């Protein structure tokens, strides 16, 4: 019965077949070890708790005050006894500490060949960027059986990336990089939470981790890059909006200059002359925008530095076109980047 209670609850078995009573399903290589540390501490706690409560209950009943009964004389201190219950906990906590530390060192030691994903947190959403350039926001697609390392930073306030099934968590801090690694050990879909309070949307700042077998994963990744093929040519600007994720740090949509000129400005100059830093002028058109993305250093816009990374090789032809269409038809979006009603 007790065992049942602590390992898996029959009550909840139907709801969540793979969950334990305490811990969610084990889906990463470290979860087993962490769960066993957790259970060890829990059992130690149960032992002491039961010991204390049983003694307390027993004394409560046995030495209950009855008429005429006086408290029996018993020593008011006993140093050996007191030292005993000092030293035993000391030993126990040292063991616990040690196990916790080794488990933690595992959690922080990234295997060298880890698959790297860049993570950017923003109020209130995540952007995951794969090495191939594929970007996702609602899901995090990863392979099973391959170590994955997340390099994370935040655009605004603190966030924290938490995947209960993997037993990993790390705050995402603006102005610096933090990392996290794990190796999924079971395919499936798992929750990803934001666990550092970040304001209004904190409770909904989640995503789903999707773990696939290696070959399936490659396919998914392809798909992530290919999604754009499925969008009809005349609505490519919508796809461009999605790709804009990668430009958002430097280009705004509301006209405010950032590291680079706002796309709103570029849009408004469409078909007109643009002054460059070296004094030349150039007409803002499809070609110019494309060139700007692939060879940013060629035409430095006046008032800005040569800071834009080249996206050559990272964007395919159709994606490029989508971005161009997006900038060209920016009047179909509002300043926050939402599609206006009539274009939905």
């Amino acid at each position, binding site marked *: 019965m007790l065992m049942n209670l602590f390992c898996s609850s029959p009550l909840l078995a139907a*709801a969540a077949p793979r*969950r334990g009573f*305490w811990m*969610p399903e084990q889906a990463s290589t470290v979860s087993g070890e*962490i769960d066993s*540390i*957790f259970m060890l501490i829990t059992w*130690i706690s149960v032992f002491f*708790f039961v010991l*204390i*409560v049983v*003694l*307390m209950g027993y*004394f409560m009943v046995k*030495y*209950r*005050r009855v008429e005429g*009964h*006086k*408290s029996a004389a*018993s*020593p*008011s*201190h006993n140093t050996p006894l*007191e030292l005993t*219950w*000092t030293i035993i*906990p000391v030993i126990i*906590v040292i063991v*616990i*500490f040690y196990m*916790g*530390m*080794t*488990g*933690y060192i595992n*959690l*922080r030691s990234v295997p060298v060949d880890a698959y790297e994903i860049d993570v950017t947190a923003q109020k209130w959403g995540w952007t995951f960027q794969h090495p191939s350039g594929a970007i996702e926001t609602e899901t995090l697609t990863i392979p099973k059986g391959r170590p994955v390392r997340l390099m994370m930073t935040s655009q605004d306030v603190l966030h924290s990336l*938490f995947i209960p*099934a993997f*037993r*990993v*968590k*790390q*705050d995402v*801090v*603006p*102005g*610096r990089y933090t990392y996290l690694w794990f190796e999924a050990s079971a395919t499936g*879909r798992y*929750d990803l*939470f934001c*666990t*550092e*309070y970040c*304001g209004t949307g*904190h*409770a*909904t700042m989640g995503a*789903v981790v999707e773990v696939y077998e290696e070959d399936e994963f490659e396919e998914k990744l392809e798909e992530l890059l290919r999604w754009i093929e499925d969008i009809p040519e005349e609505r490519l600007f919508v796809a461009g909006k999605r790709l804009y994720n990668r430009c958002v740090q430097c280009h705004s949509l509301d006209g405010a200059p950032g590291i680079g000129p706002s796309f709103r400005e570029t849009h408004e100059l469409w078909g007109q002359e643009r002054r460059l830093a070296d004094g030349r002028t150039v007409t803002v058109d499809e070609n110019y925008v494309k060139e700007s993305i692939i060879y940013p250093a060629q035409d430095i816009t006046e008032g800005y530095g040569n800071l834009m990374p080249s996206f050559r090789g990272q964007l395919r032809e159709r994606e490029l076109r989508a971005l161009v269409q997006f900038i060209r038809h920016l009047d179909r979006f509002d300043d926050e980047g939402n599609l206006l009603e009539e274009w939905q």
Partner: protein
Amino acid sequence: MSTLSTHPSGTNYLNHTRGIMSWIFTLDHKRIGMMYLCSVLLSFFVGGMLAVLIRLQLWSPEASLFTQDQYNQIFTLHGAIMVFLVIIPSIPAALGNFVLPIMLGAKDVAFPRLNLFSYHLWVVGALVFLLALVTGGLDTGWTFYTPYSTDTDSAMGGVIPALTAAFILGFSSIFTGMNFIVTIHRLRPPGMTWFRMPLFLWAIYATAIIQVLATPVLGITLMLLAVERAFGIGIFDPSLGGDPVLYQHFFWFYSHPAVYIMILPAMGIISELISIHSHKHIFGYKFIAFSSIAIAIFGFLVWGHHMFTSGQSSLMNVIFSFITFSVSIPSAIKVFNWLATMYKGSISLNTPMLYALSFIFIFSIGGLTGLHLGTLATDIHLHDTYFVVAHFHYVMMGSALLAMIGGMHHWWPKMTGKMYSEFWGRIGCGLVFLGFNLTFFPQFMLGSQGMPRRYAQYDDYLPETVQLFEFYHQLSTIGSLVMAAGFFLTAGYLLHSIFFGVRAPANPWGGRSLEWQCASPPPHDNFAETPTVGDCYDFSVLEWDEKEQGYTWREDVPRPGEEGTG
């Protein structure tokens, strides 16, 4: 020596002067203590009602009662009120103020004017807190983490008033602590040596050390934060080159020791309650006394355990995890000593004793789950989930606050001169105990299953997750209603006793510390004559007096003064 056992014939501190002004500007530590008690209970009521709103919101996953912004304000206010207005002043400033000088055998605390000033600061702090509500609300969480709190686009407008309020409340707490340290050092009457002090005083003393040494750091932290938010200077704000993790060091350097400000006096109360209501000498006096000091000191070394996932370096994580465990040892010592005190005692299951037993039960759970959190590998999973919420409610609400309620029952006859209904007292305690565990135990599972804290809703996730969370949240909500019922009942019979209660004897429980030697309620100057001090845990000299309905000195035993000690 007539005052030792008979009813007061003349005035007491309650009626010796009259009029509201005689209270607001009183210098009498007992009146100040009572004013603190009322204020703290009022704040507790407000904070508790906010807690009930939290629970109602979380009844269903889509949580339709409040918007996310409203919910964020509610839990922030709940946490901030409970921490800064309730639990930190509760035992030291309210009960401590009342009993400390009497227990010590002094006429007052060392600096009565400063004491009153502390209380006035508390009131001002509370009012400024209200200002935060009208200036746009407060939604940062009680931890005020940067850059959220310093970014005027993120956090609501009430941050600076709230920081000011916490700053003022901090100084209120500092002055109380200073006052107590000086009182204990300089106002012990002849015979009251350090090791004759009741353990409650040791606990208050250890608490005062923390109050004096840790709270100023909170002061400067809040000041920096306010300047940061008002002028954008960039010590903590990364958008100006600052370091948000440094802020967390600053915050927890105060706030971890602060949790021991909450629990140490509670432990002191429990030492008194267990011993007095078991009518047995406390076991291991010195171990308990020194463990209080040890907790106070070690408590300063572990703040980083709140930052295991914050981006703190791995090296520091390991160091802090290691030291964290050192605080659990003195706590363990105390728990075992309390048990040993009960052994072969003669235990009266009075309401205060029931609270003390609840304390041991609940504190064991709360403290032991602290081990899960102090362990690095598991805290990574548990941090910022409901497991932490459950942990700290077990230690703050279930331990510190229940100890305070227990202590309040224990000294209620002394404070008000009236006995409350023992029957309803036990029922109330039972309801609170059951409701409490029903509220917070499910939150452990909720947390270890991954439910993050500070979530206004939880419907956005995988269906089976949501279903599981919902189940536990509902248990928790039901529990909180039971607990609320228990507290309302308690408030009811206590109020009733003030007006209709039986007159209390000087010593209803059979305590030997000095406060039981003066009348109930005590006279203005506490003692007509300087009391004589003996072993305050030697109960063999007292006996039940039927006429008195309280304990009196045994006829056949000489008093310490008479036998020539002292």
